[in-house]
Every structure is written in C-alpha cells, then in structure tokens.
C-alpha cells in the first residue's frame, strides 16, 4: 500500500463534495493510503496570482513543506485542477534562488521543491497504474461513449504542469478506456469553461460551455468526464441557462473521473455523490 499526502482544497469541501468523497472512496478501494495535510489552507487560486505573486507561490510551498518535513511523504494528491496548477507553479518558481529566499521569509521555513504533485488523472494513471486499475474493475462500462474534458489547468502551461501533450492529452482517455468506456475524439478537450468568470460574466461562461458541450455531443459522447471542480460546476449548472434560450438543447451529464472509476470498482452510491448533480448522471452510471 502506497502512502500519499492529500490536499483537498476549498472546493472539495464545498461545491465539489462529491469529488472529495468519490476520490477518497476510490483511493481506499485501490489501496492508496491518503494522509490529509493537517490545517491545510487555500492554495490562493486566481485571486492570489492576480494580486500578490509572492503569496501565490508561498501558499502551496507552505503545504508542500508540511508534506515533506512534517509528514515525511514524497507525493501529494491534489484532485482540484486549479490547486494542482498552483502547486506545480510553486515547484517551478522555487527553482529560482531569489524566489525561494522570499518564499522562505513568508512561510517561515525553506521549501525548494521535491514534492511530487498528482492531479486526479495522474493519480489513477500513474500512482495506481492502469494494470492495477483494470484488475479492480468489477462492473465495466459496456462501451459507453465519453468525452474526456481536461480543461485548462491539468496541462497548461506545460513548462509548469510538465504535461506531455498539452494540446491533445490522452491520459484521462486511457483511464476511461481501462474502465470499459469508449473515449471519443473531439475538439474542445482543453478549451476553457470560463472558470470563475461564472460568478459575474455569466453570458461569457454560458457561451463557452455551450460550445464545449455541443461539440462533445456532436462527436457522439453520452457523458463528459472531468477532473476539475470549476469545469464540473460550470458545465453542469450552465446547461440550464442554455436550455432557456434553446428549448431543443439536450443535456449531457458531467461526471467526475473519480465517479466513473468508483462506479466501476464498486464504491458505494453515497460516496460517489451521484445525487449532487444538476444534470442527472444516474442513467449513464447505472
């Protein structure tokens, strides 16, 4: 059994509770021991890097210093794509000595990198591994057509995320295929959903979501798999707004990758949180 630190992040205790519970359920079933970082704090999100760069770099450094020095662990699982990108940005930025010095002033101890950061896709693809995952599948999906939606921050910018193929990634597709799904080829894999503009520029977000979901459906997808709380909430909640303007709109369920994995390996309905979605997901996860 491998031991990995766990950083849930703010969304997983709020709008993305089902990502938290389904992720924990799958980790347990797949034999990964997750140790939550004690007293974890916000990663700073977009607001920090648009306001104070040093704090934006220091907040994840504070968490990774705890992982390395207090927990004695080498890797941290960060299922929220936005938090993941901030953690990776810190690992990139502290390579610069001046930045590392300033970060140490802020955090109160030195962190100069060395903690591996796993996003939701990495966790199943690399930490667990596709062979181990395949051996645990009890209820394979019989060729369910799914569009793997990566959004922005799992892969961009590649100098920070170290993504192999930032424009057309395939690791989430590989995980879905291992579960018996049939990943579709489509256009908007890594396009932006509008992220936190959803709170104030609703018209922009509705249009971005409409383009993404319409393309997934046009390419044959019966559901969209995602690995980011902002992507999920925007794609899930904004289809209602699209429908008001276009009554012919057909909803597409937006499912976390951890929910797809959990259903296939026998994690219970309560942990999967299938009732928390706006567009019902039970039909595709039956």
């Amino acid at each position, binding site marked *: 059994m491998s031991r990995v630190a766990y950083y849930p992040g*703010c969304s997983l*205790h*709020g*709008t*993305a*509770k089902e990502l938290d519970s389904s992720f924990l359920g799958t980790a347990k079933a797949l034999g990964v021991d997750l140790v939550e970082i004690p*007293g*974890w*704090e*916000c990663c*700073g*999100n*977009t*607001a*920090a*890097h*648009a*306001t*104070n*760069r*040093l*704090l934006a770099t*220091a*907040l994840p450094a*504070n968490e990774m210093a705890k992982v390395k020095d207090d927990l004695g662990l080498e890797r941290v699982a960060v299922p929220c794509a936005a938090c993941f990108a901030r953690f990776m940005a810190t690992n990139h930025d502290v390579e610069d000595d001046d930045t590392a010095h*300033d970060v140490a*002033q*802020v*955090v*109160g101890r030195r962190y100069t990198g060395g903690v591996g950061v796993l996003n939701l896709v990495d966790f199943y693809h690399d930490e667990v591994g596709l062979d181990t995952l395949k051996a645990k599948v009890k209820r394979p999906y019989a060729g369910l057509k799914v569009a793997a939606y990566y959004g*922005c*921050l799992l892969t*961009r*910018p*590649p100098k920070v995320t170290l993504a192999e193929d*930032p*424009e057309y990634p395939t690791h989430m597709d590989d995980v879905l295929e291992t579960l018996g799904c049939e990943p579709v080829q489509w256009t908007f894999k890594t*396009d*932006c959903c*509008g*992220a*936190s*503009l959803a*709170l*104030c*520029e*609703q018209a*922009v977000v509705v249009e*971005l979501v409409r383009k993404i979901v319409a393309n997934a459906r046009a390419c044959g997808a019966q559901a969209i798999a995602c690995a980011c709380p902002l992507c999920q909430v925007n794609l899930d*909640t904004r289809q*209602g707004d699209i429908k008001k303007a276009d009554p012919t709109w057909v909803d597409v369920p937006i499912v976390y990758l951890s929910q797809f994995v959990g259903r296939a390996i026998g994690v219970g309905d309560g942990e999967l949180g299938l*009732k*928390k979605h*706006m567009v019902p997901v039970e039909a595709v996860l039956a």
Partner: protein
Amino acid sequence: MTTTIDATLARRVNRGSGENAYKCYQCKKCSTGCPVAGFGDFHPAQVMRAVQIGAVDAAVDSRFIWLCTGCETCTTRCPQGIDIAAIMDELRMIAREEGRVRSDVPFANILKLNYDSFRRWGRLYEVELLALDKITRPSSFTDDVAMGIRMFLKGKINPLPTMGDRSQMKRMAQVAERITRDKRAIGRAMDLPAKAPAQSGPGGVA
C-alpha cells in the same frame, strides 16, 4: 480616442512579472487561441502592443485584462515563450495600485473579495464572497439566486466557513504583502525622472 503614453510601462510590467513584452512580434497566436478574445474591447496581442508602446489607457484601463480567465492558452502557444497570462496579472496589479480599476469589470470585485476571504479564514468562504459581492455590486443582486438555492439544497454550499491554520495564513499574507510593497516602491523610485540639478551650466547633466 487620445492615448496617454507612459514610457515606463513595459519596464514596470517586466519588473513585476519577469516578462519582456518587447519580445512580442505580433503573430497573434495568443488572440486566435483566446477563449474571451471576442468578448472584450481588445484581444491579447493588442494589449501586448499597448504595453510595448506604453499606451496605459489601452492596456491598464482595458476591459480585457479583467476578462482573462487565466486559461494559459496564450502562454502555452506563444512562439517567443512570453508568459502572456502573467502580463495580464501584472496589468491588474498596476490598475489596482494606481486606483484605475474601471467600474464595468465585475471580476475585479470578485477577485478582491476572494483574496480577502481566504486571507481572513485561511480558506475560501464562498457564501461570504457571494453575499459581499451582491452588497458591493448591486447589479448582481438577482443573478443566479435560483441556482444558488438549488446548490444549497444539494448540500454543495456550506453556510459556515471551514477554517485552515488562520494564524499562519495571516502571518504569511502580512509578510508577503510587506516584501511586495517594499520591492514595488523601490522599483517605482527608479522610474521617477531624474531631477534636474539646481544649477546646470553648459555641458551639465543632459
């Protein structure tokens, strides 16, 4: 439209972000990949040009910088390796510092409340952020109320904050803000035009 030119703009952007706007040769790949290029006044390549020539009212005062979602497509595709998204962040910081955040950019308010919220509680307190946004930006009052209620009923919104290590957060924010303030003050002092000497004779300081 008259344009104010500030020759120090590109240098200030460089000092804050570490990025050199003069490397941009206007291929416009940033703009063709930008998800919000069609929703604002300018697109990213135009903002880059404005930074190069020091057109502050086109760069710092643009609506575009407050529409940028930080999706990093521009940064990823720039053939010159410029972190364009970081430049947008820097322009937001300059706009705040100089008190020139325009009134029709609600995202500026959201970002400020978001920063204040995690700074206060150690973690983001979504209900407080949304409530304060509705109070400070009355035009948002009726937005998404029905959806908010549905999400609350599904248990996706916590009425009370969940807190991290608040004292450590407060300490970190104070130190980061002090270091940043000092460094930016030193940078600004370097930008001030050199004062003419009290008595400059022929052949004095040019």
